[in-house]
C-alpha cells in the first residue's frame, strides 16, 4: 500500500543519535529515525529490541540520555508528556492507558479538561464533545456514563484514538494498536490509519505483525538489541526480508548497497 511520499522537504520528525541505557544495558543505541507528513513508518523488532523505549522518548514518557529530536526541522525540547503534547505528538499505548474508573469523556480529556469560566470541570461540555468525536469513529457507542472498565477492547481503543484525533495530532505514535482487538476492530483501526495519513498526519506504528506492517506502512525501521538495523521502503522488500532483518539483524544484501 506504499504510496508515493514526498520526502524532499523537511521531515515531520527527525530523531538523531538517540540513546538510552538502563543499568548498563543500552536499550537504545545511537538510533536515527525520521518521519514525513502523511507517512506511516513501522518500527519493528523483537521484544526488548528498544522500539517502545525509543517511542517513549519521543512521547516524553522517558527522558533520553542523549540525542536530539527535531520537529519540522526545529530542535524540540521534549522532557515529559506535556512537552510532547505541545508539539501535537499523541500516543496510543499498547496497554490502553486509560483510567478504568473514569468514563469515556473524562479519559478523553484527561489532563486537558474543558472548564467553565469558574475553573470547574465542565462535564456536560466534555461529554458533548466526546459524543461527537466517538460518534464518528464508533457510531454504535452509547456507554458514555459508565467507567471505561466496562468497555470492550475495541471501545477502549476508540477512546484512545478519539483522544488523538480530537486534539489534532500531527504526529501519532501507535504502540501495537491492534494487539487487544478483534478482527473487525482491527480493520477499523487500519481504515482509520489510512484516513489520518490522508490528512497529512505522520504515524509511527510499533507492531509485531509483519503482515500488518506490509499492509499499512510506507517504510519500516527495524531494531535489534537497541541498534537500528536499517530503514527500508516497504514496497522494495518481502515479508521474508523484514523477518530476516528482525531475526538476523542484517539488511538484505540487495538493499545494502
Amino acid at each position, binding site marked *: 500500500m506504499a504510496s508515493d511520499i514526498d520526502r524532499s522537504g523537511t521531515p515531520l520528525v527527525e530523531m538523531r543519535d538517540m540513546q538510552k541505557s538502563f543499568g548498563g544495558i543500552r536499550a537504545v543505541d545511537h538510533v536515527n529515525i525520521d518521519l514525513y507528513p502523511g507517512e506511516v513508518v513501522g518500527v519493528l523488532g523483537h521484544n526488548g529490541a528498544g522500539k517502545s523505549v525509543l517511542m517513549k522518548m519521543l512521547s516524553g514518557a522517558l527522558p533520553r540520555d542523549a540525542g536530539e529530536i527535531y520537529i519540522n526541522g526545529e530542535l524540540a525540547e521534549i522532557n515529559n508528556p506535556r512537552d510532547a503534547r505541545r508539539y501535537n505528538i499523541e500516543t496510543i499505548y499498547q496497554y490502553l*492507558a486509560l483510567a*478504568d474508573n*473514569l468514563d469515556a469523556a473524562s479519559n478523553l480529556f*484527561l489532563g486537558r479538561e474543558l472548564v467553565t469560566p469558574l475553573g470547574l470541570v465542565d462535564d*456536560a461540555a466534555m461529554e*458533548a464533545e466526546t459524543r461527537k468525536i466517538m460518534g464518528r469513529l464508533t457510531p454504535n457507542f*452509547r456507554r458514555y456514563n459508565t467507567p471505561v472498565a466496562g468497555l470492550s477492547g475495541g471501545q477502549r481503543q476508540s477512546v484512545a484514538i478519539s483522544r488523538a484525533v480530537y486534539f489534532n495530532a500531527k504526529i501519532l505514535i501507535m504502540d501495537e494498536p491492534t494487539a487487544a482487538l478483534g478482527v473487525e476492530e482491527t480493520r477499523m483501526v487500519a481504515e482509520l490509519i489510512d484516513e489520518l495519513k490522508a490528512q497529512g498526519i505522520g504515524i509511527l506504528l510499533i507492531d509485531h505483525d509483519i503482515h500488518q506492517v506490509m499492509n499499512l506502512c510506507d517504510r519500516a525501521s527495524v531494531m535489534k538489541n537497541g541498534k537500528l538495523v536499517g530503514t527500508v521502503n516497504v514496497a522494495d522488500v518481502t515479508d521474508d526480508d523484514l523477518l530476516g532483518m528482525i531475526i538476523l539483524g542484517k539488511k538484505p544484501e540487495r538493499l545494502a548497497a
Partner: protein
Amino acid sequence: MSESSDSLTEPTRTQKSLLAQLEIDTRLLGMIGAFIVLCLIFNFLTDGRFLTPRNIFNLTIQTVSVAVMATGMVFVIVTRNIDLSVGSLLATCSAMMATVQTLVAPEWLGLELGSPMIAPLAIIVGLATGIIIGSFHGWLVGYLTIPAFIVTLGGLFVWRNVAWHLTGGQTIGPLDLNFQTFGGINGTLGVTGSWIFGVIAVAIALYGLYSGRRAKVRHGFPVKPVWAEVVIAGIVAIAILGFVAILNAYEIPERRLARMFEARGEVMPEGFTTGYGIPYSVLILIVVAVVMTVVAQRMRLGRYIFAFGGNPEAAQLSGIRTRELTVKVFAIVGVLCAISAIVASARQTFHSNDIGTLDELRVIAAAVIGGTALSGGIGTIYGAILGALIMQSLQSGMAMVGVDAPYQNIVVGIVLVLAVYVDILYRRRTGS
C-alpha cells in the same frame, strides 16, 4: 437520540426500576437505610432516649472531628496510599494551638486574656502546622518514593511525641473562650440563625439540581422525568430543614440561659426558652464536605486524584504531575487534621496528651465503611461522612445501652470487616 431500538446494533436494555428513574445511588441508599435501622434499634433498646434532640445534637458534634479527617482520607486511599498519622498530626496541631493560646499570645506577644486576636492567631498557626507537616509527608511519599504506609507509620510515632514535647507532657487549658466556641455546645447559631442557614442551604441545593438539569438539556442529553426531580428536591429540602428543626428543638437549660443573659448584663424574661441550633463545629463539617465534594467532582485536582487512583501510569502519561499530586493530597489531609484539632480541643476545652489517640483507625474505618476501596480509584466524600456517623452512632448507642468499652470495640471491629464484605458483594452484583 431515541433510547429504545429494536435493531441488533444495541444491547437490549432492561426495564428501568423506580430507583433507576430517580437516578439515586443505591449504595448511598443502602448506607442510609443501615444507619436508620441502627438508630431505630438503639432507640428501642434505650426506651426512646437515643433519638432525642439532645442525643442527636451530641452525636453530630461527636462525629465532626473524625468525619472532617475522613473526607481527606478518601483522597489518600483513592490515590492508593494510606495515612496512619492523622491522630498524631491532630495532637501536634492541637499542642501548637494550645501553646499559642496559653504561652505565645499572653507572654510573648503580651495579648490580654480573652483578646479577640488569640483564637484567629491560634487557628492560623494550627492550619500552617497541618499543611506543612502534611506536605512534608507528601514529599516523602511522592518525591522520595517511600511507601505512604511507612512514612505515616513513622509520623504516627513522631507527631504524637512532638506534641508531648511541645507541652512538656502537660495538659494545657482552659483554652481561649472564643476558641472554645468551635467545640460544639459552646458555640451555636441559635434558632433564628439556624433557620436562615437551613433556608439558604435548601435554596443552594435546589439551584444545584436545576443548573445540573439545565446543562444536560443544553447539550441534548437525556434527563430524568420532572416528577423524579421534584421528588429528589423534596427529599433534600425535608432532610435539611428536618435536621435544623431537630437541632433547634434541643433547648438550652434554664440556668445556663440565665447565666448567658447575666453575662450580657441583661435579665432573662420569665419563662424564656430557646434552642441551641446548629453548632459551629457542624457548620465547619458542612463547609468541609461541600468544598471537598466540589474538589472531588468538579475540579481538575479531584479528577486527577481519581485518575491516578484508577491507573497511575495512565495519569502520568496524560501529563499529570503525579508527584505534585501526592504532595497536594497529603497537604489537604494535614489541613483537615488541623481543623479537626480545632474542633476536638475546643470540645474538651483543653489540650491533652492523648487527644486524637486511635483516630487514625477510626478515620480509615469511616472512609472504608463509606465505600472507599483500598485498591484505589473509588470513594466518595458523603460516604466517608456517613461512615463516620455510623461508627459514632454505634459507639454512643452501645454506651447508652450500657455495653462496656472493650465490647464496644469488638463490635466496631466486626462491623468494619462486615461492611467491607457487604460492599464487595454489592460491587460484584452491580458490576461496578
